[in-house]
């Protein structure tokens, strides 16, 4: 029996572990951590073997489907894209689980933690392995639900409960868009078949959807005088879902607050499971995106904007975890940009974006786990109170510096020597250059370079403020136990070398996702449908383009060193409430105020979500005001319910009379 026949076990084992841990964990030592660890380790081994097999023969993707009902199915699909994602998710999740045995050892509800994280992992794995959009959506919702549970893990803390709710509700906006996209897609496909779907055809399966792309692209509906292409509509709705899940502007607001959960959960969310789901969705449906006019442009521009937007905020945060959170948003922006530039480079875009996703998973998990290690030992996450931690925790400091170098993207252009972040981020920036050169506009390229500079500044600011200099407050602290440092070291190894070692194979491998025994997509042909011009092969850029990312990376390091390491500038003057720029940044562009204001008008739902929060925290008067309007509307409706039965009768009779008149009038008009 081939290893591929066991692929279904990949999501199933962690799901099983969830059940076992939930019911037995209380009685086992360490909250039954061993169950999910073994399960996820097995999943990892299977994924790895499948990936290796696919590397030998990328044509033979694994696809097994069972009919679920009518024209829908359940099934698994392991193609190169899914395989690398599965391997990465199970691997990072495994390391985080091992690390958690140390990190969570003092928590009474350990068993609940391990149960929920293994369900989280299971949902994510099942999301990746889905061979149809509906199953993907179901897993998508499960991921959202688990994140709600985990962010609110310490539900006794009001901040945690509120952050959990915020995460759930904000991503829910995206989910509604995603669902709307699926419903539109379903209705369109149904129409293409004239409602008579032959047996054995599952219309929401990816190969089926992809094979209908030309027909879908030909459909359009006039909306407000514009001809809206259905494929564009569907892909943009999908992208809306991805915006919510992957924390792109403007739905990123939940990500920084999601820090309220345990740090390991943040690592899981930011590196392996939740936020990458959005990127994965876009990558998975990439043939639809590239055939849809304008969709990839939106993806590229929004991605680039998010990258710089989040980076500017990363510079002014003082909370260790918040800096990392904004860094994640920024890097996700890069990944989206990487997909968006597919408009210029075709299927390779999926390769470079997923490559960055994987590298990012390694170094971001490392960053979070290091931060967790520091917090665990020192007990604070305010960087202003830290300093000189490197002396106390040498291993943590060393691994964290490696991660920082990887994030900043340090390496030598033109060769494959460099930290893993360098290899992948550089590729994206170069692709953005090609994108500009081929008529996509220079905006994404300029922003991505600027964001690279800021990235380097904020991450080294973090390093210098935390690990070097003199301790600013008295704290105890000790190096963390081996169960925590070993995963750190492993991750550091990957952050150091994974990119350099695999860069040759990886892009080619993942780009083959769309050409194999499952689907045979003619990506250039589809790009013509979408009206994109694919560039000739990369590699002809001027030297300065190749070197610029590294130059700004090093420049950022130097600036951070001068300002925070040497302290040649007195930051206290700059960092004050009187400096309008700082104030603007520190208040995160007042985005909470503006966003809530804007959205609650546009999306009543979000307004209400914030209104609920406003009531909880007494937070923001604008929100309060708008929330009150919504609730007042509800209250006003309730006023009709006077409790007097005679009034009820009046309303009934008035309703009857008005309805008669209405029907008579409408019938006359029609």
């Amino acid at each position, binding site marked *: 029996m081939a290893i591929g026949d066991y692929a279904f076990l990949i999501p199933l084992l962690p799901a099983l572990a969830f059940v076992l841990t939930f019911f037995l964990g209380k009685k086992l030592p360490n909250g039954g951590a061993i169950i999910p660890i073994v399960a996820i380790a097995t999943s990892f081994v299977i994924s790895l073997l499948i990936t290796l097999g696919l590397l030998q023969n990328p044509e033979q993707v694994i696809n097994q489907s069972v009919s679920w009902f009518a024209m829908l199915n359940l099934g698994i699909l392991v193609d190169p894209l899914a395989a690398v994602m599965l391997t990465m998710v199970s691997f990072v999740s495994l390391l985080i689980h091992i690390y958690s045995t140390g990190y969570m050892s003092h928590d009474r509800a350990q068993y609940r933690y391990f149960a929920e994280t293994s369900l989280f992992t299971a949902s994510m794995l099942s999301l990746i392995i889905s061979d149809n959009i509906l199953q993907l959506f179901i897993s998508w919702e499960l991921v959202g639900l688990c994140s709600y549970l985990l962010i609110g893990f310490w539900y006794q803390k009001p901040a945690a409960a509120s952050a959990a709710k915020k995460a759930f509700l904000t991503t829910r906006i995206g989910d509604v868009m995603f669902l709307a996209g699926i419903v539109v897609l379903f209705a369109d496909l149904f129409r293409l078949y004239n409602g008579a779907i032959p047996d054995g055809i599952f219309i929401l399966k990816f190969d089926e959807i992809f094979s209908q792309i030309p027909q879908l692209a030909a459909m359009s509906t006039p909306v407000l005088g514009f001809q809206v292409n259905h494929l564009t509509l569907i892909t943009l709705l999908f992208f809306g879902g991805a915006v919510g899940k992957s924390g792109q502007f403007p739905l990123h607001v939940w990500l920084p607050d999601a820090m309220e959960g345990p740090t390991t959960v943040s690592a899981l969310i930011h590196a392996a499971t939740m936020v990458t789901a959005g990127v994965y969705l876009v990558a998975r449906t990439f043939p639809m995106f590239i055939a849809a006019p304008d969709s990839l442009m939106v993806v590229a521009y929004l991605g680039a904007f998010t990258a710089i937007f989040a980076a500017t905020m990363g510079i002014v945060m003082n909370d260790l975890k918040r800096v990392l959170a904004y860094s994640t948003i920024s890097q996700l922006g890069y990944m989206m940009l990487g997909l968006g530039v597919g408009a210029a480079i075709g299927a390779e875009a999926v390769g470079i974006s997923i490559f960055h996703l994987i590298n990012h998973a390694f170094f971001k998990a490392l960053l979070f786990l290091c931060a967790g290690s520091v917090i665990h030992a020192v007990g604070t996450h305010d960087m202003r109170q830290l300093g000189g931690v490197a002396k106390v925790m040498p291993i943590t400091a060393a691994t964290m510096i490696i991660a920082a170098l990887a994030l900043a993207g340090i390496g030598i252009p033109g060769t494959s020597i460099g930290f893993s972040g360098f290899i992948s981020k550089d590729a994206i920036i170069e692709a953005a250059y090609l994108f500009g050169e081929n008529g996509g506009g220079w905006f994404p390229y300029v922003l991505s370079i600027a964001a690279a500079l800021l990235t380097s500044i904020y991450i080294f600011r973090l390093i210098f403020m935390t690990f070097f200099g003199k301790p600013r407050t008295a704290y105890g602290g000790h190096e963390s136990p081996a169960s925590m440092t070993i995963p750190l070291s492993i991750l550091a190894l990957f952050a150091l070398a994974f990119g350099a070692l695999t860069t040759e194979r990886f892009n080619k491998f993942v780009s083959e996702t769309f050409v194999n025994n499952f689907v045979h997509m003619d990506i250039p042909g589809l790009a013509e449908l979408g009206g994109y011009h694919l560039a000739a092969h990369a590699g002809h850029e001027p030297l300065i383009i190749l070197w610029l990312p590294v130059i700004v990376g090093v420049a950022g390091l130097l600036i951070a060193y001068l300002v925070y390491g040497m302290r040649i500038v007195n930051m206290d003057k700059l960092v004050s409430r009187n400096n309008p720029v700082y104030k603007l940044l520190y208040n995160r562009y007042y985005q909470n105020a503006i966003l809530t204001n804007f959205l609650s008008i546009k999306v009543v739902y979000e307004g209400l979500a914030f209104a609920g929060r406003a009531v909880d925290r007494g937070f923001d008067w604008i929100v309060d005001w708008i929330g009150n309007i919504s609730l007042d509307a509800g209250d006003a409706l309730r*006023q009709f319910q006077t409790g007097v039965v005679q009034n009820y009768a009046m309303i009934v009779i008035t309703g009857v009379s008005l309805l008669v008149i209405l029907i008579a009038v409408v019938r006359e008009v029609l």
Partner: protein
Amino acid sequence: MLNKQFTIMQIITSVYRFFRPRIVGMVIALLFLAIVLVSVIGTSWPAIDQLPQNLDDQSNIKGIGLLIFTEFVVPFELLSIVLLSAMVGAIYIAKGEAGR
């Protein structure tokens, strides 16, 4: 801000008191009546020419009885359950508890 709900409530009650429910009720009932009458007048009703058809036997008791036990026996049987149900219910609800 003590309670917005309260002020809205007060306005509603005062308006309500001002109009007196009778007038409102009258208006609504008249509106309904007007709608019914307009609909009725606008409709051409089918009718037979003369009645009764059978001058010998003006009573229709037999016919009704026949109908009850043939065509409309189901509602008749259901009615027996309705009455039983009403009896059980009415006795239960109206029965005073001891000591009250």
